[in-house]
């Protein structure tokens, strides 16, 4: 697999042609996309044009960006001017945003070449891409299995070699879970590190954009490009992007690695075995393993599935058939609203809108939403106590390897349990990333998750790099 740092290096010194790089990737897409369905749309013409421009700039001796000529895919919930942005929902089918998301502008400025928009669970609600209105994405390791979700298209695109990096969004694990299931690196940065401007909102206080890549160095490079303060996002942390690539070779000697003693049950034995192997590797590299407790972790699922749908019910109210997207014509306005939203949203989205509307409605707010916000505080306090004793925490990313299509679609709660280990991070606003660490059942990839406190990305990436060296 071609590393994005190698592509950028080669393109910027003229030893590689961006056009050739793009053609190679388009050829791979041509070969396997019909089987994988990673993309909602491939912007081949624009990509060829952008590549030609980069090559011309290099020839003319102009300085090019750190991602010069690197083929990148975007989850199809990030706005791209003039290019359809659907969120894999019928309600937005055909909508062409009149503006670019901040991350898109940053990628372009760095010379990245956007290859296409990837499939997802509708509005990022799901863990398998089975909730996409345009059909699921297949796991490149076994096409009878899900790639994970919601950013399953981005994870699969990187895993299949369609692109050398991709962006996803992570609200409860939507980057890390598919990264683990597809055997790639996936990072959910600290809340506020990457601008959300132009990311179609699912749950505003939990959403965060992050990178997928084939290895830790590529992921760090991508994150350095997209991170940093954005005045268009009020929740953006007013700090420059952290330096990550520079710390990757620092090792973990002397670092403290947290092991959760009260980890919820339900993990496959192979997954737990890989986690133990990861602890062993870090211990061997000079780290100390520290026992920590997260007593409130079992309540995370409840807190998350009240907070996220509540925010979503409000965020998705704007899809009303007035200014953009789908409209089902009806004799009066209220009928038009209801018919449009009934036809435009899939089952899972409707379920979460209903749950969230209920949790916020008069008479139920205190019992549900209000309580969930307090539980969120408990989780955050748990982490604060733990990070007094440790620098990072290691958990499985997912309870199991990639599962078969249809195996969880009838039971929403079973699907929600896929996010058991990833949700706490979003509630706390912390960074976490999934690193491939060997295989489990059916020789499918297993991911180990590295968690760190707010703005603890450097420690997190040091540990991730060490795990990568050991795997």
């Amino acid at each position: 697999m071609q590393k994005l740092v190698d592509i950028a290096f080669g393109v910027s010194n003229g030893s590689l042609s961006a056009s050739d790089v793009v053609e190679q990737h388009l050829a791979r897409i041509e070969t396997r996309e019909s089987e994988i369905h990673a993309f909602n749309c491939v912007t081949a013409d624009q990509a060829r044009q952008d590549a030609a421009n980069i090559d011309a700039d290099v020839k003319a001796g102009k300085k090019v960006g750190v991602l010069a000529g690197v083929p990148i895919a975007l989850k199809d919930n990030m706005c791209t001017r003039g290019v359809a942005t659907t969120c894999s929902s019928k309600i937005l089918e055909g909508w062409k945003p009149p503006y670019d998301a901040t991350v898109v502008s940053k990628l372009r400025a760095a010379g990245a070449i956007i290859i296409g928009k990837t499939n997802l669970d509708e509005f990022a609600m799901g863990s398998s891409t089975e909730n996409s209105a345009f059909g699921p994405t297949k796991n490149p390791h076994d096409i009878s299995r899900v790639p994970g979700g919601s950013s399953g298209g981005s994870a699969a695109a990187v895993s299949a070699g369609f692109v050398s990096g991709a962006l996803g969004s992570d609200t409860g694990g939507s980057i890390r879970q598919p990264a683990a299931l597809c055997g790639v690196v996936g990072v959910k940065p600290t809340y506020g590190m990457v601008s959300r401007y132009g990311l179609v909102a699912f749950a505003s206080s939990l959403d965060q954009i992050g990178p997928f890549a084939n290895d830790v160095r590529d992921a760090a490079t991508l994150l350095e490009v997209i991170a940093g303060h954005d005045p268009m996002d009020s929740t953006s942390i007013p700090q420059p992007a952290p330096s990550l690539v520079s710390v990757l070779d620092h090792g973990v000697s002397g670092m403290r690695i947290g092991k959760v003693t009260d980890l919820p049950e339900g993990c496959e034995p192979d997954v737990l075995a890989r986690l133990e192997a990861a602890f062993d590797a870090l211990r061997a590299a000079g780290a100390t393993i520290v026992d920590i407790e997260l007593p409130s972790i079992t309540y995370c699922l409840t807190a998350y599935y009240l907070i996220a749908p509540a925010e979503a019910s409000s965020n998705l109210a704007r899809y009303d058939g007035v200014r953009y997207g789908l409209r089902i014509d009806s004799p009066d306005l209220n009928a038009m609203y209801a018919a449009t939203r009934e036809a435009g949203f899939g089952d899972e989205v409707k379920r979460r809108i209903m749950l969230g509307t209920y949790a916020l409605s008069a008479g139920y707010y205190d019992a549900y939403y209000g309580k969930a916000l307090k539980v969120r505080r408990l989780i955050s306090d748990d982490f604060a106590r733990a990070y007094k004793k440790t620098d990072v925490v290691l958990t499985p990313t997912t309870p199991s390897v990639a599962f078969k299509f249809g195996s969880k679609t009838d039971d929403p709660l079973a699907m929600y349990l896929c996010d058991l280990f990833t949700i706490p991070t979003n509630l706390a606003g912390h960074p976490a990333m999934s690193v491939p660490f060997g295989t489990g059942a059916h020789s499918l990839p297993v991911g180990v998750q590295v968690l760190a406190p707010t703005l603890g990305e450097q420690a997190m990436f040091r540990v991730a790099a060490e795990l990568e060296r050991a795997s």
Partner: protein
Amino acid sequence: MSESISQEIVVKVSRLARLNLTPAEIERMTSQLAGMLEHFRDIDALELSTVEPMTQPYPLQNVLRDDVEAPSLDHDEVLSQAPSTESGRFRVPPIIGFDV
């Protein structure tokens, strides 16, 4: 936290959310929501009276911008995305039952 959710409430909530659910969907939704709410009762065991709600993942305050104009979006580009327009405005069916 509380009694199980009734079909009547599900219908009321679907109206609030402007979702025109079919009777079959109402039935399925009622049982699924009831199942979830049952699971969510786990937090009833927690003593939360002294816990402050957490509303911000990262503590920021006073994020302000200067009162400086930026170019607006292109009128035609925006209107071209709308399901129905007339004389530069967005057209909607008659507003009945709102009385705002």
